[in-house]
């Protein structure tokens, strides 16, 4: 009887079930395919130096994707991460000459945390839709950065060597130094989401908020803390990205907003909350970075690159939904 039932299950369904249990496998498969295509298009490009470079650019994106993953787990989204990251890197670069690199970095994270706090109060206590709350906050932040830049026009900006070392240089000529910050952070997020009480609360709130509330969860407090964490993480990503690029402007990280959402979506986190995890988002960030390289190497005009970028994100998201859907 049991054997009969097993025999009737088609191989395709078995494969699908297996992929559902191991969502990282198809992602790594896609990453492998992209790398192979890249090597075919431009033989010799895939080298240790290239890998190192890809990781260097993927790290800030993966950190922003962490913000999206965690907020999406609760059924929210944080569209202010990019401007917060830009703001933090810019504020840091203006303060370096007065406070040193560490002081400037810590000081620059304060406005980021304040933005997160306001986001959290709006979303958690006033129950404003996260999309609206964070879009409005990004308007405020980008305006405020412009005001600050105007006031600071004579001060100038400087990315200190310590930040450049962290973002732009490598250990033993291969491992990017940003991994020194990223690996512990990612480990905390990965383990925290699965094992810590707070991480599980995020899943609980996203899965069924009413149930979580009835079970005694203070949903508002959870969300306020979440958006503060998200903003501080975004600020750190901004600092690292300033190190990668070697300069800081008020709009440095802005183009990373939509890719950060895309990385979390490709990584299998549901935008409706309650399902997903950070490991997929990390792979998603690497996939997007490789994809951008591939589109650059193909030497297509900007227009075609944008079209392909959008189409591929949609195709991956659709395929992923089909594979992992509970049928």
């Amino acid at each position, binding site marked *: 009887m049991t054997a009969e039932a097993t025999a009737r299950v088609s191989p395709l369904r078995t494969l699908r079930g297996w992929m559902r249990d191991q969502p990282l496998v198809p992602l790594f498969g896609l990453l492998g395919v992209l790398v192979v295509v890249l090597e075919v298009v431009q033989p010799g490009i895939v080298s240790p130096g290239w890998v190192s470079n890809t990781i260097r650019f993927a790290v800030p994106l993966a950190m922003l994707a962490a913000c999206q993953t965690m907020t999406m787990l609760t059924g929210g989204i944080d569209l202010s991460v990019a401007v917060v990251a830009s703001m933090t890197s810019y504020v840091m670069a203006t303060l370096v000459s007065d406070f040193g690199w560490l002081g400037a970095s810590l000081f620059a994270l304060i406005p980021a945390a304040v933005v997160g706090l306001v986001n959290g109060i709006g979303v958690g206590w*006033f129950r404003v839709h996260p999309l609206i709350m964070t879009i409005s906050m990004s*308007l405020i932040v980008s*305006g405020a950065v412009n005001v600050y830049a105007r006031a600071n026009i004579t001060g100038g900006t400087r990315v200190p060597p310590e930040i450049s070392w962290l973002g732009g240089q490598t250990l033993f000529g291969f491992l990017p130094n940003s991994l020194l910050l990223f690996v512990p952070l990612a480990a905390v997020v990965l383990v925290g989401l699965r094992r810590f009480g707070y991480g599980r609360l995020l899943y609980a709130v996203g899965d069924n908020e009413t149930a979580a509330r009835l079970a005694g969860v203070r949903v508002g407090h959870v969300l306020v803390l979440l958006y503060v964490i998200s903003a501080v993480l975004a600020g750190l990503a901004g600092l690292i990205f300033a190190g990668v690029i070697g300069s800081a402007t008020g709009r440095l990280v802005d183009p990373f907003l939509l890719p950060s959402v895309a990385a979390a979506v490709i990584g299998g986190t549901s935008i409706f909350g309650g399902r997903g995890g950070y490991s997929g988002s990390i792979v998603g960030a690497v996939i997007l970075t490789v994809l951008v390289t591939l589109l650059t190497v193909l030497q297509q005009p*900007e*227009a075609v690159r944008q079209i392909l970028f959008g189409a591929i994100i949609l195709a991956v998201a659709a395929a992923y939904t089909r594979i992992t859907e509970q049928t």
Partner: protein
Amino acid sequence: MTERVQRRLDTTAARGLIARATRGDAWTVGLIVIFAALLVFTKLLRSSYGLDALAIGALPVAFAAVGQAIVVISGGIDLSIGSVIALTNVIAAVLLMNAPELSVPIVLLVLLIGVLIGVVNGVLVVVSRVPDIVVTLSMLFVWAGAALLVLGTPGGGSVDWLRTLITGTLGIELLPRALVVLLVIVGLVWIPLRRSRLGLSIYAVGSNQLAAFRSGVNVARTKVVAYALAGFFAALGGLALTASTGIGTPIPGPYLLLSVAAIVLGGVSLAGGRGGLLGPIVGIYILGLIRADMTFLGVQPAYSTVLQGVIMVVVVMVGAYLTLRRAAT
């Protein structure tokens, strides 16, 4: 006895009806009052500033807000609306420059393209089963790239009658042509639709998709229609942009942000199923007036962005707070 119960029921029902009517429209009425106060204030600041200047400037984004509102009422969201406006804007500008004598067919063609773009968005949402926000986020890149393919740098042309259509006023100053065009088109499309079965299904799907499905509503078709309407209004926005600027610009303006801001201001629930189109239109005009006022007051553009954001945050917080209070009572 029964009579008394009946009468009592009647009065409760009537009271409920009144409460519902004022509650539903109170937001829009409040918006109109704010708009009027702002208009008087603007007139005091600069008496030469007329409603016509406001109406022309706000026309593309007003169309965007109308399209966005329809999709949001149906329970979705269209993040690609700014890109679609840019795409239809450049298509119209290129075609009108090359064949100005065929301007009427070109306008109709651009509207058709808008509808087709919306259908593509809607079909992708339905078929891929990926959340709306992700699909339209991806399509944002696709349509923006397509706009760049059509026209690499700002250029193209327009025809005079399009500009005359939306410039100036109809006799009195309170009736700018751009506002009349907006209200006539939106009214012609929305009022019959709102009363039809299809319009009802848009609200039904937005308010509870499963319930709508179980009541026999064709959910997939309704969603595609909502996105097609959004595409249609986005194309109108693109045409309005071509008409008012005289050229096509392939880079999307801030229409996505403004359209979402306007529908939230206008009392359309992002959860879907609730709201109308008048609120978002008034919302757009309020945002436009605030920007104009700040220019007249000599406020730096950077401060004015901050202030707009603060206004949005305060408005949505108050709105959400009122909803919470209402839910509690």
